């Protein structure tokens, strides 16, 4: 409950921001973040305080990290067809995914 959930900033005033969590809007305190937060940013919220601004590009970085992990852990000849299918799915998904600004 309100423990470490990410949300989208829709309004900012001096010390607080209104953040959208999957359609629910909550006001959170900004005392603890270590960089300025703007409308359109994503923040990690914990017990009513934003504790980190999440740069949107870091989401893709994380996914790329997981994909690199998968590639590294593949055994040599790639003869495992099922895994190849799954990797193909992932590659297709990665091309289509991306961040879209909330309308």
């Amino acid at each position, binding site marked *: 409950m309100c423990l470490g959930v*990410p949300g989208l900033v829709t309004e900012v005033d001096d010390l607080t921001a209104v953040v*959208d969590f999957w359609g629910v809007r909550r006001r959170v305190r900004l005392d*603890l973040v*270590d960089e300025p937060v703007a409308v359109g940013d994503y923040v990690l919220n914990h017990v009513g305080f934003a504790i980190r601004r999440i740069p949107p590009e870091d989401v893709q970085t994380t996914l790329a990290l997981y994909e690199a992990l998968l590639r590294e*852990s593949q055994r040599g000849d790639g003869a495992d067809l099922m895994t190849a299918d799954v990797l193909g799915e*992932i590659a297709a998904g990665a091309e289509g995914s991306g961040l879209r600004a909330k309308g």
Partner: protein
Amino acid sequence: MPGSAVDRLEFRDPARARALNDALGRAVADIGRSPVSVMHVCGSHEQAIAKFGLRTGFPRALNVIMGPGCPVCITDMPEIDEGVALALQGVRLATYGDMLRVPGTAGSLADAQAAGGRIDVVYSVAQAVELARATTEEIVFFATGFETTAVATAAVLLAGPPKNFSVLSAHKYIPPVMEIVSEMPGSRVEGFLAAGHAATITGWGLFEPFVARHGLPVVVAGFEPLDILAGLTRLVEMIRDGTREVANMFPRCVTREGNRNAQAQLWRVFRPIGGRWRGIAHVPNGNLRLRDEWAHVDARRRFTIDVAKLWDHAPSTLVRQCICGNIMAGIASPSDCALFGGACVPESPVGACMVSSEGTCRIWHEYGGVPDLGSRGGAA
């Protein structure tokens, strides 16, 4: 978008999860013995593992143990007693909901409430401050939780709370307990999954001395299913390869230095002291107390808390059979406990692990722990 269904699904995508499970299986098989034991120290990790049923996909040889990562569960009886005593003395308390039913020596805060104590449940310390602003009577905030939560308490104190507000600090600091667990006799933990949210505050750099000292790899992981699977895969690979270092698998939230602003606030207000964690005895630097400069908002100094009269009650037989301590230390499972699911259930909990939504026993009771539910994909 982290807040949108699209983004969450990317981190819950079954295809990626299957691939990661396969990779995890291969890494465990490469090690070639059973069990391979790793520990996480975060209630939210256990909740995510249980909620998504991830254990049914783990390789059979992999043992993922939950350590003392439930901040409610490790809050010891004397600390609960302080809250109960204050409430029974007529002081109004504000607390996070989970703490209400944790057993103290002679009852929980809920019992104190039933006996006439006034206790408000809040979801944020800021809400407790608002409560204090709205009244003239004293409000004591019973402050529990790890460093991720303690920073919020620090922030409201630095912002200048009203005069009728004070804090009874039972906050805890997680890094020291990893040391304790590593040094426990009988501990077979070969690597740690560190909690992503705490590391958002503290940074991952502070695990480096731990790794150097104990030779155990540490991976910082997030809380979505893919975060956990990728974190475990990386950790097992490091165990396999003998890699002794810290790996950050949660870069979208965690950096090496962490949140300097939050850290500064935390240490301006709190100092770490040794203290008892329920079931684990003494943890050096594991408890957070208000610094002397904050004596004016310290409930322990503002009030005389008479716990002695609560201690006339000897713990019941049931409590003596409770093995929460061993469970939290990761050397026993709920299914090892004679009381689990019978005398100890969420509606009548004996131990703290059954009370908190982040407690191992509660989570296993809700979601079934590690039952053989069939369909173990990606097994090794």
